[in-house]
């Protein structure tokens, strides 16, 4: 990105109408990926000068325990429901989970889920890191996930959504192909980076369960209805991506998981969804010329006036 400038120069403008078609395998209309954030929050993390981890002095056991509920109880409940309806996970992983709770990482791996990096811990923020420090967490992520699962991560969702001006250039340099941190479109799009080829993977932050329950204060059934409307609209429009970003400690609560199961039932029965993983969407988009098509389409608007 262009550090310090008013326009960060992340990507070029491209209006939603009059785009060339984007085809998904099997003629499906919308690529649906479910993204459990499998996170570890530390009880006593060091302070980052740019963001506080917990509201109260450590140990702040309610928010810490709330998140720990996801790992002790709710992951297993959520994962069973996903598997039952044929939805693989694309895991936004605090990679230290490979050390803390390898049972959960192994469970996700056994279910055929993909892993991408969500930083080391969700209590270690990228704000204020120098380039060497940011390289260290990217290298740690690649190495840790590879050693634990054999998978090579393809994507990045910044830890606690904390970035630096270098993040996108660096992940592209390390060969990652997609970022989940940009929310400007319902399709993948090229991102400007210094080297490599990076796309923005739609992460549908507005239908993240955290947004549903704690930004918009939805009831479990309202949230389920929201996901169904989001899906129906994107399937009607076609050539779209829908992510369902989740946290087991939220969606896996006993009053929420039942209504959520109805969402998966609805999407699975509809027939228009390519139910897949984020890495598979990125691979298909890149291998089928989607990047070049999007680039050429975008170029039509460079400085243009109708």
């Amino acid at each position, binding site marked *: 990105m262009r550090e310090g400038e008013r326009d960060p120069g992340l990507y070029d403008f491209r209006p939603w109408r009059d785009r060339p078609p984007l085809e998904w395998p099997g003629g499906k209309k919308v690529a649906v990926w479910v993204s459990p954030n499998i996170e570890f929050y530390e009880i006593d993390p060091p302070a980052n000068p740019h963001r506080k981890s917990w509201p109260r002095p450590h140990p702040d056991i*309610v928010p810490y325990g709330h998140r720990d509920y996801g790992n002790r109880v709710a992951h297993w409940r959520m994962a069973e429901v996903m598997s039952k309806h044929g939805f693989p996970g694309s895991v936004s992983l605090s990679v230290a989970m490979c050390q803390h709770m390898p049972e959960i990482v192994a469970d996700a791996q056994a279910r055929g889920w993909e892993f991408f990096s969500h930083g080391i811990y969700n209590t270690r923020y990228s704000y204020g890191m120098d380039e060497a420090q940011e390289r260290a967490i990217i290298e740690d992520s690649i190495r840790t996930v590879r050693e634990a699962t054999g998978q090579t991560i393809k994507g990045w969702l910044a830890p606690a959504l904390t970035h630096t001006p270098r993040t996108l250039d660096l992940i592209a340099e390390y060969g990652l192909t997609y970022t989940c941190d940009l929310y400007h479109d319902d399709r993948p799009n090229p991102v400007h980076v210094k080297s490599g080829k990076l796309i923005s993977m739609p992460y549908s932050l507005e239908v993240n369960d955290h947004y549903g329950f704690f930004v918009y204060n939805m*009831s479990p059934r309202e949230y389920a209805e929201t996901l169904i409307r989001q899906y129906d609209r994107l399937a009607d429009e076609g050539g779209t991506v829908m992510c369902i970003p989740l946290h087991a400690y939220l969606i896996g609560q*006993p009053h929420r*998981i039942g209504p959520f199961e109805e969402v998966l039932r609805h999407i699975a029965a509809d027939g228009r969804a390519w139910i897949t993983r984020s890495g598979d969407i990125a691979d298909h988009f890149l291998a089928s010329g989607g990047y070049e098509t999007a680039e050429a389409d975008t170029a039509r608007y460079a400085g243009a006036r109708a």
Partner: protein
Amino acid sequence: MSLDPQYLEYPMRRKGMDHDLYEWSAIHERAPLALPGGAKMAVALLVSLEWFPIVPGEAPFKAPGHMLTAYPDFRHYTAREYGTRVGFYRLLDAFGKAGAKATIAVNAAIAERYPTIIDDIVAAGHEIVAHSTDMDGTIDGSLDEAAERALIRKSRDTLAAATGSAPKGWMSLARSQSWNTPRLLVEEGFAYALDWVNDDLPYRQTTPAGTLVNVPYNHELSDRQIIVTQQHSADSYVEQMQDAYRWLAGEAAPRVLPLHLTPYVMGLPFRMGAFERLLGWLAEQPQSAFLTAGDLCAALPEKAPE
């Protein structure tokens, strides 16, 4: 710009938790709870019975529900008192009608100020757990050990004098603990605490002074969370509790549905009818029992051999 090198060091990056307060354990791998009468479901009613001084204490922090306006805050002082003198009795009557035993978390100030309430609780067979001195008695990591111990002792001794026996259970205001709380509770004769929200089932935690059982009362299912914070209606609350009950009852092993109630929230006339319908519905469920925190502790199986 760069961060202190310590920010990229992870001394607690290890198997299990990043502290020694309790051990990691996945819910599906544990020996099942042995609920009385072979019940499959426990419904655990918990009421917080609180007294808020009109001159609010703010250290270590101001408790939820405390005074909000400039002094004198008649509005909130009396609205909380309404809960104690009116709402709580509506709840007691509703429990009686449903044949339900509840756990009442009682500020010591309630026993000092309104001793007949204690008599009414004891006569109905409900269980009393200590809930600090009054709503100024908050605990967090900034409270020194001697002050915390004095607060725990005063709460315990006041209730012991009012009921004839020292309470075995404890709940902190806002469930907030210091690093010392579990050990101090064991040292002062408590057997269980209701603060941690990281599980659906009771579990043992080890302290340097011995074992303390955590009996979780999921704060996400509380009336404070659903009605006050998320601003849902009483009808929506009832629907959410029924959805939660149905889900938990469908899981393989015995499960607990915790209902944490606040007299000045649920005990209002326009909400009580919905709550009574819920209680009646719960009382009709097969293989279900209303259990107190002490009952749940007793249902915890002996630690399985390694």
